[in-house]
């Protein structure tokens, strides 16, 4: 058992060291997953957006962009409901950790923002933040 534990200990730090080396040798961060086209990203109406408001069909609007994070719901590191509470809603504040968005919310890392880009599906026609502010 001692040999196994020691081998695993060495293997663990070897993997960490390898990952660090790979990260240092890797090229800079990639471009957004959905590049802007001549026509811009697909436009999504607010009515369409709000229909995707369940854990099994979860879209988020963040700073005017729409993300389909349905696939990611089960992999979000915080408890599931922390993310699913924002399905079909404007979630910029939650992503930024600003305002009264619950005690488990915090400013997300650069990695989290890059990860989010993978799920980018379009742009919101109307910005609900503007709408809410004008009410």
């Amino acid at each position: 058992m001692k040999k196994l534990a020691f081998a695993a200990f060495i293997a663990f730090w070897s993997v960490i060291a390898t990952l660090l080396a790979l990260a240092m040798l890797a090229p800079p961060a990639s471009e957004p997953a959905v590049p802007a086209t001549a026509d811009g990203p697909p436009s999504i109406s607010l009515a369409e957006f709000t229909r995707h408001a369940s854990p099994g069909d979860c879209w988020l609007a963040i700073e005017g962009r729409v993300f389909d994070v349905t696939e990611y719901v089960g992999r979000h590191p915080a408890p599931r409901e922390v993310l699913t509470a924002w399905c079909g809603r404007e979630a910029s504040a939650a992503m930024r950790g600003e305002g009264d968005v619950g005690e488990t919310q915090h400013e997300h890392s650069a990695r989290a923002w890059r990860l989010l880009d993978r799920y980018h599906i379009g742009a919101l026609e109307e910005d609900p933040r503007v709408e809410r502010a004008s009410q």
Partner: protein
Amino acid sequence: MNRPDLRPGQLTIAALVLLTVVAVLLGLRNEDLRDLAALLDYLGRASAIVGLLMLLLAAVLSARLPRLDRHFGGLTHLWQTHHRLGAGSLLLLMAHPLLLALAASAGSGGEAVAFLFPPLADWALWSGWAALVLMMLFLAPSFSFFGRPHYERWKHLHRLSGPAVLLALLHSAQYGRTLPGSLQTLLWWLLGVLALAALVWHFGLSRRFGRRRYVVERTMMVANNLVELVLAPVGRRRLRYRAGQFVYLTPYDETLSAGHGEEHPYTLSSSPLDEHLRVAIKDLGDASRAIQTIQLGSRVTVEGPYGDFFPRRDDDRSQLWIAGGIGITPFLARARHIARLGVPVDVHLIYCVQDEARARFLDELRDHAAALPGFELTAHLFYRMGPLDRDFLTEHCPDHATRAWFICGPTPLNRLARGMARSAGVARRDIHTEAFDLL
């Protein structure tokens, strides 16, 4: 390799781990099998849950409550369970971040590193890192990562288990998402409180409430490297024990060159009917060497008793005792107790030593063999006869296959004798071993 003994204690631990594994498997959803990344993510979470459970169970066992160990077949076996849980926990909790990082990396080393090392403000994730690093620190000596550990340093480092448990629970509370919420809350709260209570007891309260005070009344040099202490109780709280059990003894003699205020396990060599406690201590390290010259009148404390070597109720079964070296002490205690009781027995003691000059207490044991009906003694001298074997047993104890075996000595002898018992057809339940290797 011998199969570990499974007593109610080990079975309970195994059942708890198994139930948790089942609960984790029930938490598997279709989306966890969608692709490799999702599967790795699930395995990462599963390893964390089972690893944390094992860490908490190991902490609970560390309370070292007297009499709890009997459900594990003695403290040595309880420590072995604790040790296995610690090893399993470390392996799983090291796999946990790597699996999650691989799941999140999408083939990019940079993404994996960004996942593993987020901004410092992400305290919930860093609490997991802190718990893991603390675990590595306090478990490194247990698994001899950097050579054989110094006993007292190892014990001090083990105090880091308290903060490690707290940080691991904090981390889990922020991220737990695999078990149903109520089960997760119940499991971590219940085991978390038990584990922390056990650690507080072990490292703090037991010193005040779990120890009995004695004073060194007499010392007898049995050999130049073996002393027997005779301890007189201070106050009315006396240790109640069975012959062959052991205690953790802490000497308070500032003239000692080592071991002052340090607890070490030693077997009691007295009969429970004796007024005084007797402890035979062989010079095997700094502390046990220093205690050979402990001052008369100095204070010691004892915590225990521990061990479940001999059955709690005497039965009529004939017994074969195999002792090696200082492993003679539980048998010496038992022989002294039988002498005090004055009852007939059917016991054959094979005392394995290198040569007769190193056979401690041999004269006293010969006196017991001469005086006690049914008590036989045979010395096995390694230098002259080679390793103990079945031929020797057959010659000196022909009915050894029908006896209950009690084996106590160095690990190689224990392993050898246990193998001989199995090959002689002795049932596993009739083979009892006691080891001194607690690490």
